[in-house]
C-alpha cells in the first residue's frame, strides 16, 4: 500500500492536472482576446468567468481523482479545451451578430449548458461504478434510442427548425434528442453485438473467400439501415443518418471482425444515398450545392450560400487567421453552430483549425486506445462506439463545411452551440473515462487490490503478455468475456473451458449482468 501515491502518478492524474491548466489557459485566453478585440474591452465578467472555469476544472479533477483514479488523463482536458474554445467563439459570434444589429445570447446559454454537461459527466463518473452495469439495460437503451430518434416526428412534440425535424419541445426548451439517442444506441449496439457476435461472425456461406452473413442475421442491420433512411427522409437529417449507420457498421465490424459486414453496409448506404438523391428533391439539392457550390446559378439560388460564405471566411483566415475578434464570422449563417469550424478557421487560421482537429483526433484515439485496453467485449464496443461516433460526427460536420462531403446538419462536438450536444458529449466523455479507469486500473493497481496476479509486471499493456502466454491457442479478443467475478479476484486465470475471464474484479456490490 505504500506505493499508492506512486501508482496514481503513473496513471496520469498529475499530467491531467497540468493539461487541465493548459485547457483553462486556452479557454480564458481565447475569451480574453474575444472581449478585447470584439467585445469592447476586457471587463469584470472575465474575472467571474475565470473563477468559474478554474473552479469547474478543479472540481472535475477532484471527482476523477476520487472516483476514477486510473482514468485516461487526456480525455478530460481535451474536452475541456474544446468546450472553452467553443464558448469563446460563440461569445465572439454574439458580438459579431450584435454589430450587425441582431441581439443573441448564445454564449450565455451555452455557458450554462457547459456547466450542466461537466457536472453531468462528474455525476456519471461518481455514480456509475462500472460500465458493465449498463449491459443490463441493453434493450431498454435500444428502445429509448429509437424513441428519442423518432420523437421529433411525433406531431405536437417535434419541432421543425430550418427544414430539419430533429428538435422536440420540452418544458419550453428545445432539445435535440438525437444527441442522446447516439449514446443510447452505442449501449444498445454494444450489448446486442456482444451477445450475438458469434452467430454474426462465424455463420454464413463463404463466397470467393469472404464469409457472407446469413440472410436471417442481416435482420438487425437492415432494421438500422431502414431507421437511418427514415431519419434521413422524414427528418431531412442526412448527417444523423450517416452517423447512426456508420456507427453501427463500425461496431458490427469490430464485434465480428468481418470485413464483409462493412462491404454490405457501405453498399446499402450507397444505394440509400443514391436513391434518396434521385427521389427526393431536397437531398438532390444538397448534392448539387456540394458539387457545384461556386457555380453562380447554384449560389444565387441560395442553396450553396452558407457553404460558400463559410469557405470565404476560412479562405480569408489563411494560415494564421485574422485573430480572435478581428474577422467577420458573423457573415456566415449559423456561424455559432453548424459553421463554428468555419468561424474558427477564419479567426484562428489553418493553424487553429489543425490544432482543433488534432485535439479531436487525440481524444478519439484515446477512446479507441481505451477500447483496446479494456478487457470486456461490452466495454470495448462502448468505447469504440463513443470514440468512433465522435470521430464520424466531426468528420461529417467539418467535412461538410470544408466540402469533403455534402453539407449536413450535425453539431461539432463540444464546440458548436447546442445544449443537447454539449451534455451528451460530456456524458460520452464520462463513460469513456469510466471505462478507461477500469482498463488502466486493471494494468496498474491490481497489486493494490491485494490480488497479485501475473499482470503486475505490465502496468500499461492492456493485454497481459502473461495471460496471452497462458492460453496461446485462444485469441483473447475473439472469445467472449466470461462472467467477471468468476476469477475471484485472481485476474486472468484460465478457466476450465478455455475462456479468459474478465481481468477486472468488479467493485463490491456490483452484480454481473446475466446473459
Amino acid at each position, binding site marked *: 500500500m505504500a506505493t499508492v501515491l506512486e501508482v496514481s502518478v503513473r496513471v496520469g492524474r498529475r499530467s491531467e492536472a497540468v493539461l487541465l491548466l493548459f485547457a483553462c489557459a486556452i479557454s480564458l485566453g481565447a475569451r480574453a482576446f474575444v472581449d478585447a478585440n470584439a467585445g469592447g474591452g476586457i471587463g469584470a465578467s472575465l474575472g467571474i468567468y475565470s473563477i468559474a472555469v478554474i473552479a469547474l476544472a478543479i472540481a472535475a479533477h477532484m471527482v476523477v481523482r476520487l472516483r476514477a483514479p486510473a482514468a485516461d488523463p487526456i480525455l478530460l482536458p481535451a474536452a475541456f479545451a474544446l468546450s472553452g474554445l467553443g464558448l469563446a467563439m460563440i461569445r465572439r459570434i454574439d458580438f459579431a451578430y450584435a454589430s450587425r444589429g441582431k441581439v443573441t445570447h448564445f454564449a450565455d446559454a451555452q455557458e450554462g449548458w457547459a456547466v450542466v454537461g461537466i457536472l453531468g459527466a462528474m455525476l456519471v463518473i461518481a455514480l456509475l461504478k462500472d460500465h458493465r452495469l449498463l449491459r443490463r439495460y441493453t434493450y431498454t437503451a435500444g428502445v429509448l434510442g429509437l424513441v428519442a430518434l423518432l420523437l421529433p416526428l411525433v406531431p405536437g412534440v417535434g419541432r421543425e427548425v430550418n427544414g430539419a425535424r430533429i428538435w422536440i419541445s420540452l418544458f419550453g426548451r428545445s432539445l435535440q434528442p438525437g444527441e442522446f439517442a447516439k449514446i443510447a444506441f452505442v449501449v444498445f449496439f454494444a450489448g446486442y453485438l456482444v451477445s450475438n457476435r458469434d452467430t454474426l461472425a462465424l455463420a454464413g456461406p463463404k463466397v470467393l473467400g469472404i464469409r457472407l452473413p446469413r440472410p436471417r442475421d442481416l435482420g438487425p442491420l437492415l432494421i438500422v439501415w431502414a431507421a437511418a433512411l427514415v431519419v434521413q427522409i422524414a427528418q431531412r437529417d442526412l448527417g444523423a443518418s450517416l452517423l447512426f449507420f456508420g456507427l453501427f457498421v463500425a461496431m458490427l465490424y469490430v464485434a465480428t471482425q468481418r470485413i464483409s459486414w462493412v462491404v454490405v453496409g457501405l453498399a446499402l448506404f450507397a444505394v440509400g444515398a443514391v436513391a434518396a438523391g434521385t427521389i427526393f428533391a431536397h437531398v438532390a439539392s444538397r448534392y448539387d450545392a456540394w458539387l457545384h457550390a461556386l457555380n453562380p446559378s447554384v*449560389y444565387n439560388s441560395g442553396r450553396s450560400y452558407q457553404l460558400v460564405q463559410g469557405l470565404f471566411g476560412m479562405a480569408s483566415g489563411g494560415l494564421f487567421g485574422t485573430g480572435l475578434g478581428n474577422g467577420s464570422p458573423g457573415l456566415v449563417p449559423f456561424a455559432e453552430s453548424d459553421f463554428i469550424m468555419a468561424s474558427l478557421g477564419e479567426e484562428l487560421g489553418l493553424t487553429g483549425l489543425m490544432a482543433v*482537429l488534432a485535439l479531436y483526433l487525440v481524444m478519439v484515439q484515446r477512446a479507441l486506445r481505451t477500447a*483496446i485496453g479494456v478487457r470486456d467485449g461490452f466495454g470495448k464496443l462502448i468505447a469504440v462506439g463513443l470514440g468512433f461516433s465522435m470521430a464520424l460526427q466531426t468528420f461529417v460536420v467539418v467535412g461538410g463545411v470544408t466540402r469533403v462531403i455534402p453539407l449536413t446538419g450535425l453539431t461539432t462536438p463540444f464546440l458548436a452551440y447546442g445544449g443537447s450536444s454539449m451534455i451528451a458529449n460530456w456524458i460520452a466523455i464520462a463513460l469513456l473515462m469510466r471505462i478507461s479507469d477500469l482498463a488502466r486500473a486493471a494494468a496498474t493497481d491490481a497489486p493494490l487490490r491485494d490480488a497479485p496476479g501475473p499482470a503486475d509486471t505490465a502496468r500499461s499493456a492492456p493485454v497481459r503478455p502473461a495471460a496471452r502466454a497462458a492460453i496461446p491457442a485462444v485469441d483473447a479478443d475473439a472469445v467472449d468475456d466470461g462472467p467477471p467475478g468468476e476469477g475471484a479476484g485472481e485476474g486472468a486465470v484460465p478457466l476450465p473451458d478455455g475462456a479468459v475471464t474478465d481481468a477486472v474484479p468488479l467493485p463490491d456490490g456490483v452484480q454481473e449482468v446475466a446473459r
Partner: protein
Amino acid sequence: MNEPIRRLSAVVLLLFFALMAAGSWVQFVKANQLGEDPRNVRTLYKQFGSFRGPIIVDGQAIVSSVPIDDPFNYQRTYTDGPLYAPVTGYYSIGPGRSELEATENALLDGSADALFWTRLGELVAGTEQQGASVELTINAAVQKAAYDALGDKRGAVVAIDPRTGAILAMVSTPSYDPSTLAAHSSSDANRVYQSLLNDQTNPLINRAIGGDTYPPGSTFKLIVAAAALQAGYSPDTLIDAPQELSLPLTSATIKNYGGERCGPTDQITLLEALRVSCNTAFAKLAMDIGWPAIESMAANFGWGSGLDIPLKVTPSRLPTSPNAPEVAQSAIGQFDVRATPLQMAMVASAIANHGVLMKPYLVSKVRDPDLRVIQQTQPEKMSTVMSPDTAAALTVMMQAVVKNGTGTPAQIDGVSVAGKTGTAETGLDTPPHTWFVAFAPAENPTIAVAVLVENGGDIGNEATGGKVAAPIAKAVIEAALANAAGGN
C-alpha cells in the same frame, strides 16, 4: 476485437487527414482565389476596413478615416466634399477609387514600398496596418474663393504658384460629394454613382484636368505673341489689323469681336493687338511667323504631353499640319486647338516665372503614421519656354489687358494684375466658353490662375472672358494675396 479496433483507428486517422487536407485546400491552396471572388464581401472589408491615411490641406484633414462600429471598422469621411472632390476623388465600395484616392492609394492604405519599415514595425508590435498621410499644396482659402466665385456656373479654376509649380487651387463645378459614394452599402454607393453618371451636368468630370478639353479662344494669343516675340517682334512692332481678314484657299474670313476695327488704322502694335484681343491681327501674325514657330512654343508650354500631378492630366491638343486658313483659325484658339484649364494656368505660370515653366504638383509631403516625412516633392523645372525678355514683354502686354483692355474686370486696387481674356466659339447655337488667365502681382508674381466657364456661364451669348471669367480670377487672386499677407 483489438485488430479491428486498430484498423478502425487507422480509418479515423484517414478521415482526419482528409479533413486536414481539405482545410489546407480551402485556407491555403485556394485561399487567394476565394479571396478574389467578387461575391466575397470580406475582401471588401479587408480592403476598405483598414485605417486609411488622411488627406491634409493647410494642416487640416479634409479626408479622414473615422472609426465606426460596422464590419468595415472605418468610415471614409470628406470635409467640404464638393469643394475638394476634383482633387481627392472618391473611395467607394461601389465604383472604386478616383483622383488622389486612386493615385495615392498605396500610400494611403499603407501598402506602398516606402512604408515597408512601418509595416514591419506594425507586424512586430501586432498593431493594424496604417496608411500614410498625404499633404497637399492646395491653399484652402484660394480653393474656397475659386469654388465660391464659380458658384452655380459650370467651369473650372486652376491656380498655381508660378515659382514652384505647386497647385494652390483646383476646382471643378458642378461638383459632387464623395461622402455619398463612401456609403458602406455597395447598392447605395452604386445607386448614387449611377445618378451622378446620368446627371446631364457631368459632376464626375474633373473639368480642370480631364474629360473634354476646351478651345482656348483668345487666351491662345499669348502663345502666338510669345512665338512672335521670340522671333524678333517687340510689343511696339506694328502688325496688320484689318477689320476683316480674308483667308487664302477659302472664302471664309476672320472678323473681330462684334465686327469692330482694332484701331483707328489698319495697323496696330503687337501690344495693342493683345490689349484689345484683335483677331485679325493675330490671325495674320500667325500666318506670317508660320505654324512651326507656334507649334514649338505651344509644346514648350506643355501642349501634347500628358502629366501626372499625380492625377492624370489629359494632354492639350494642337492641329496636325494645318493649312494657312487653319493656322489663322488656330491662332485665335479655335479650329482644333484644345486646352485644359491646368494647361492655361501653366501658360500664365511660365510667363510669370520669367519664361521658366515649373512642373505642377499637388502633393507636397507624405508622412508615415509616426509623422516622419517619407516623401517631399521638390519643385522641378519642366521647360524653358521663352527668354526672360520675352516673358517681361508679355507681362507688360498682359498688364495692359487688365489696365485698359478686355480684362478690366480683373483689376485689383494696389496690385498690378497681368491677364488675358478668352471667348471661344462652341457652335452656332451654344453660348461661348469664356476664359481668363492671369497672374499677380505682375512685378513679383506669386499666383498664376486660369478660369474657364462653360457656355457663357449665367449670361449666355453675351458672355465674354472679361465679363464672366475675369471677376472669378480676380476673386481667386485677391484670396491668394490676402492669404499670403495674412500668413506673413
